[in-house]
């Protein structure tokens, strides 16, 4: 491991540990974690998929907020490596998606069309529960190194811990409720992105940046800001003005 990479890995874990110790917004933390994956591992994009009470996978966080890229993650409701990984609770590797169109007739063509060639999926586990999967997408064919895979799994494990806040719980009902709360936060975030994109004529990923900056500048949780925007308690214009002033 090169010295600079080692520093990056250390910094990522120090930041995660500090968020976990000091209280955190689950959407913000998991978005940061997928960004860490994309940066630290030999992949182009990373996404976290969480299962709801029925076992349907939803996008919880992704390293890119580009809508078409989020689409590649969510298309795995029907088939795909993250879905298999979730159902089996074990890693799934697909070094070349060109060879997987029989295995995943819906997912493989969609991912290839979006420019992805390889996928590695790692399970998000918490004791005896499988919560979802971390998908790591590459734009070239090939397998991830064992080092990258174990680092990716460590990041997925942190994500699982962050999601289930009541650490002592072994009750499936409580786990499901906490996952549902996280998924609800993500829905509201997507809606808030839409409000800002429409009001400010912005692409969705920039709308996300505006929300994030506003939350940070005001020391508020991303989820709370998103809720205030969607319920129209906080005018979208106020966020747009503030961020424009900040970045002329």
């Amino acid at each position, binding site marked *: 491991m090169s010295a600079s990479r080692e520093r990056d890995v250390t910094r990522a874990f120090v930041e995660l540990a500090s968020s976990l110790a000091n209280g955190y917004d689950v959407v913000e933390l998991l978005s940061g974690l997928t960004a860490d994956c994309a940066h630290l591992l030999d992949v182009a994009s990373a996404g976290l998929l969480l299962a709801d009470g029925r076992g349907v996978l939803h996008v919880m966080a992704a390293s890119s907020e580009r*809508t078409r890229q989020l689409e590649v993650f969510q298309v795995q409701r029907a088939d795909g490596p993250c879905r298999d990984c979730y159902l*089996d609770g074990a890693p799934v590797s697909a070094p070349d998606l060109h060879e997987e169109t029989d295995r995943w007739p819906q997912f493989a063509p969609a991912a290839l069309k979006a420019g992805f060639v390889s996928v590695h999926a790692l399970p998000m586990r918490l004791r005896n529960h499988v919560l979802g999967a971390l998908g790591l997408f590459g734009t070239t064919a090939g397998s991830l190194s064992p080092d990258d895979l174990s680092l990716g799994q460590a990041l997925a494990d942190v994500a699982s811990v962050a999601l289930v806040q009541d650490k002592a719980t072994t009750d499936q009902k409580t786990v499901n409720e906490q996952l549902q709360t996280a998924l609800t936060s993500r829905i509201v975030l997507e809606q808030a992105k*839409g409000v800002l994109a*429409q*009001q400010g004529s912005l692409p969705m990923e920039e709308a996300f940046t505006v929300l994030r900056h506003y939350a940070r500048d005001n020391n508020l949780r991303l989820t709370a800001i998103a809720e205030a925007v*969607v319920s129209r308690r906080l005018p979208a214009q106020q966020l747009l003005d503030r961020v424009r002033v900040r970045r002329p």
Partner: protein
Amino acid sequence: MVGGRRTYVAGVSRRGTVRLRSGIREAAISDDNRLRTALSEAMSGAGSALSAADLLCHACVELLQVDGASVSLTHEGSTQGTFGSSGEMSRQLDELQFTFGEGPCLDATRQGSPVLVADLDDPGENRWPAFAGALLRSGVNAVFALPVTIASQQIGALDLFRRRAGELRGAALAGGMLAAELAALPLLDLMSSDLDWDVAAQGGDGWEQLESLSRVEVYQATGMLIGALDIGPTEALVRLRAYAFSHGATAAETAWAIVEGRVSLEPREWLGPDGTTERPR
């Protein structure tokens, strides 16, 4: 095997390893699939949103070992009340909650999680004195209220009534949760004053519709409608769905068109000529 599910033969996966856990999971999934299909099929062919809700309630009685079922709309700003039921008795009992202003359906909606009462006659059970008394006098000893949620919003509840005291568990509880998900569709239709039911009835399988409504691009497009029309998230979803039906498209297709700027979001086109068209809030 139902579309897209992975195939396991006698607990052995394609990769040849024995996966007992997958086998058990597959058994549960196939039970789940049976209920999913039966509940969704029960609603197909309905002539109106009200009859779709009624048919769903009948299916609950048939499949979930309960004696009555009803669906109510509790979304703030909508005309609240009981809309679908398995019969007159269930409808009347359910409506009492709105008369008394108390009951499991209202609680389930407020808290966003199921309210399950295995024995209304239990001395410790005193949450709804008036409503529980009325249920007991009608011979109902257990009541289960499951919230109906769409895109993070609580819009109503499915109430299941049973004469026999005891918990709702296993497949009956799982089936109740599935029915509560499906109940979102007729409730959304009821909230849409300008939705043409004949078109809506051709919207296809209920699960496909729900899947289409729970996609990232739909949430984003809903947000854009909130911004453009100054309406709440539920109304925005109702309007997106009505627009999709009237254009012969799925919710997800319509959402893509909105997100990519291919659909005008001019209020006069979405809310009527003067922007004051009667609309659910």
